[in-house]
């Protein structure tokens, strides 16, 4: 789908997903790392054994469908090679401290002269300029400044982030959208575009209803654990079951089915079945209109029901009867979820340490231009000779100088 386009990825562990998405969509992506390798290669978690530069599962996960080269941008030869690549490229992603490329004479103003149609996407914690643009940042501190932590967790303890780092993934995915938006603008104007993606704002987008809460309703939302706060009503979502936890939302379609289970299990009188218009229960609850059974009583029945069954029993019976009961899965539980297998979602990747790993497949299914994984993550400087030699026509000596790695 994007096969006419070439993407240069200079991101160092903060935005690898952006060019991976374009690569899955068919673009020709070249990952450009410093001679010692991307900082992303040192990001945990790590696989067991193997060469040090190839051990990061994090790096492996987000760099498929890319050719990998190194360039020593501190050398003139390296910078010249980058200029030559930019000439033929459609997109360039970078995630250094703002203005790093400018400082070596390869800022947007220079790049657009080399290639008047290039889309230059700069990914940074807070944005390219402005009062916070030079703040030191990490996944945790951006999650804090972006706001989602303020509404996650319980009131008795500190605000909470998701334990698995998410910031650079939101930012990277958004950078793909940003790049294609700018590309559409370039089609309209014929001019190169500079795009400034801010990780902080990518995290604000995860606040959903809490984003403008204070300006709209006059108060901030308070963190309250797994309680779903919907303005007029707050609803607990997580219930303990026989072997863990399950998410059950007391919405109409759910209650219309499980009210029969309540009765079967003797948790409520049979009169409950006809005593309420269950399919519209949650709409009336949210609108503060009359309901036959108070939420407390409904939740008590849900609590007593859930504890009698396992996660998979609840999921399976729910699926059979058309009601959504969602187990709180671990990655292990997820591996056994049949739906993903039935849809052929999982892919198997050969890791550099010789193991095979299960990896998430194609992001979406398209009938005419299906996405694909054509190659797995390159090892450090794997394609130096292919790209610098075959494509740019550089000699071995020139490749060594530009890449900072002996081309033999």
């Amino acid at each position: 789908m994007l096969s006419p386009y070439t993407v240069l990825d200079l991101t160092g562990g903060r935005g690898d997903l952006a060019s991976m998405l374009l690569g899955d969509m068919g673009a020709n992506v070249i990952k450009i790392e410093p001679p010692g390798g991307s900082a992303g290669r040192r990001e945990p978690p790590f696989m067991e054994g193997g060469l040090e530069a190839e051990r990061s599962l994090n790096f492996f996960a987000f760099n498929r469908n890319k050719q990998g080269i190194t360039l020593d941008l501190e050398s003139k030869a390296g910078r010249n090679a980058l200029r030559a690549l930019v000439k033929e490229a459609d997109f360039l992603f970078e995630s250094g401290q703002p203005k790093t490329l400018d400082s070596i004479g390869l800022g947007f103003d220079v790049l657009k002269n080399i290639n008047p149609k290039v889309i230059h996407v700069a990914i940074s914690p807070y944005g390219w300029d402005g009062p916070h643009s030079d703040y030191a940042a990490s996944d945790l501190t951006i999650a804090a400044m972006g706001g989602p932590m303020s509404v996650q967790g319980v009131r008795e303890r500190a605000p909470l982030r998701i334990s698995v780092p998410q910031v650079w993934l939101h930012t990277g995915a958004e950078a793909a959208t940003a790049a294609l938006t700018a590309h559409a603008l370039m089609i309209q104007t014929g001019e190169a575009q500079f795009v400034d993606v801010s990780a902080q704002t990518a995290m604000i987008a995860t606040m959903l209803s809490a984003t403008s809460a204070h300006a709209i309703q006059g108060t901030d939302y308070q963190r309250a654990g797994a309680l779903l706060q919907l303005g007029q009503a707050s609803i607990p979502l997580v219930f303990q079951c026989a072997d863990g936890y399950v998410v059950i939302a007391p919405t109409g379609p759910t209650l219309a089915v499980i009210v029969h289970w309540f009765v079967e299990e003797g948790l409520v009188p049979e009169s409950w079945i006809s005593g309420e218009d269950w399919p519209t229960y949650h709409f009336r609850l949210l609108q503060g209109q009359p309901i036959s059974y108070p939420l407390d009583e409904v939740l008590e029945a849900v609590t007593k029901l859930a504890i009698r069954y396992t996660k998979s029993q609840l999921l399976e019976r729910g699926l059979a009867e058309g009601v959504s009961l969602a187990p709180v899965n671990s990655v292990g539980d997820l591996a056994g979820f049949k739906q993903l297998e039935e849809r052929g979602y999982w892919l198997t990747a050969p890791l550099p340490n010789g193991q095979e790993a299960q990896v998430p497949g194609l992001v979406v299914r398209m009938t005419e231009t299906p996405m694909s994984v054509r190659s797995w993550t390159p090892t450090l400087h794997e394609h130096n000779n292919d790209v610098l030699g075959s494509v740019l026509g550089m000699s071995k000596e020139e490749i060594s100088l530009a890449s900072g790695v002996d081309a033999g």
Partner: protein
Amino acid sequence: MTTPLPFEGLKVLDLSWVVVGPTTAKYLGDHGATVVRVEATTPLDILRTAGPFKDNVPGFDRSQFFGEYNTSKLGISLNLKNPAGKEIAKRLIEWADVFIESFTAGTVDSLGIGYETARELNPSIIMVSTCLMGQTGSAAAFSGFGFHAGSIAGFYETTGWSDLPPDGPWVAYTDTVAPHILSASIMAALDHRRRTGQGQFIDASQLEMSLHFLSPQIMDYSTTGKTVTRIGNRSEFFAPQGAYPCAGDDRWCAIAVESEEHWEGLKSAMGGPDWALDGKLDSMEARLENHDAIDQHISEWTKDQDAKALMQLLLSHGVPAGVVQRSSDLETDPQLSHRSYFRHLEHQEMGTVPYAGHQFRIKGYDSGPRFASPVLGQHNEQVLRDVLGMTDDEITEAIIAEAIM
């Protein structure tokens, strides 16, 4: 000279609801497309019944949860179960370049406006169906919200404190992941269509998109059997890190020490505290092992300090730090002001209210949102007359037939 908008001229039929579909359509609208958002009134988009409500007064037209994801759209309320309403939907499908829906798998087919019909009406249409589990498979009909898919994906297991039940991320996590990826996919499909004239069908499972955000952990499990779980604000690899209490009501500052440089910076910001003098904590392993004790020392030091001043002090020593900002803090965040992040737009019922802006800026181009979200049925006549070219008589007939509500 006005700059053209990226998707100027593009026509989008947004028959989706809740968060993922509307957000995706909103992206296209904010960046220039004409988007017609079709709403059914039975049931109403649940976001219209969920807060925050303007001035805390509930009402279908007062929810900014709905408003946030429906900017730059023309809104019409259409009865899709009524034959005349269905006819109007079909005319909108003929009109559109992109058709987005997010009902439970199979619903549009049963309404007679599935992809087969859409393609007959409009051969080069790009139709997008997005739901939690995708259009096929034994769980295709598993309908619900982003908290259901978030729980199945593993985001509940990995959000919370290790000694407490899972908290889960705020509200509906997969709804925050899917729109980035779905928007990019549609934009790529549009570029392909521009070059070839070819439309297509996109099946977008919100679970499948979101699992990429746990990709390294899934790979880790498949090769070592290790299952990742919730560990509060800590990292398995770096220490210390956490949100530390500050002066005032529920004020916190996040601090993350991810390297020896950060550690030296933290110690110097703290004025070289006695407990860290002997050098025994000068390795990541030692700090991971003694995290509880280190946290106590840091909390003791932070608890009477102003969160913002503390952040500045730590940053000046090269330590990543960030105040835990609330919605009220975002309103006055100078970096967000610098980016013109919040846009104040005039809404027909709520008056002037802030809308979140975009996560990126393109130099020399103002990304919007361009105009406020519609009240229910705000553009009924405009859409029928200006978009579909219906005559006054036809519009009156549609109203009498109860196609429009």
